[in-house]
């Protein structure tokens, strides 16, 4: 399956992401999930960013937290709500919200 996963928290309580297998995996960082893209913990980038090369972070949710798109890890593509709609319809066939 082509699975797009929405991550909305910084600290994750479920280990689902470590177990699930998908032919194509996308991670869309929204709400407090954007900290995975912007914030290093003890100098180390989030291990979430190693799980796939298809990484996205929602611009509105970066900005509302006082951060800039330029604070985002180079591996992550900054998207807006319209882009998320396109990702949903064009890139993934199943969606999960963790």
């Amino acid at each position, binding site marked *: 399956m082509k699975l797009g996963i929405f991550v909305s928290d910084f600290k994750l309580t479920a280990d689902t992401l470590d177990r699930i297998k998908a032919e194509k995996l996308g991670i869309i960082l929204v*709400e407090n999930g954007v900290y995975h893209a912007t914030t290093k913990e003890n100098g180390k980038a989030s291990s979430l960013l190693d799980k796939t090369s298809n990484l996205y972070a929602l611009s509105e949710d970066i900005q509302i937290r006082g951060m800039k798109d330029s604070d985002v890890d180079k591996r992550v593509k900054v998207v807006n*709500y319209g882009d998320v*709609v396109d990702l*949903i*319809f064009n890139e993934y066939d199943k*969606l999960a919200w963790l």
Partner: protein
Amino acid sequence: MGTLTIGCFPGLVGNMTYDFTLKLAEAAADKGHKVNLWFSGNATGSIKGHQKHLKDYSTGEKYIKALIEKGVEICTCEACTVARGVQKTDGIEGVQWNAMHWYLAKIHSSDRVLQIGGE
């Protein structure tokens, strides 16, 4: 153009997941997609009419009305809603009231489904 059905469980006001849901629905509708929105759990509180829009709080009401005008179908879980003391006559006009099978039926004809749990 496709059909997207979103199930939203987290509640209005302060829980930004609810705001995310409405904004995503709007963006999809604006691109010409058919959007269905199912509220269950705490989200059902949001279909209560006459919400006072204070600056410090999100409001579901204005947004829900705008989405319905754009052709988005919105349905609240009747049992969850009446359990919270909200009657159909108190609800925002245009919001449908039904049982959980409404959601499953919409899923049946959908290209994409995003179930948002949480609370």
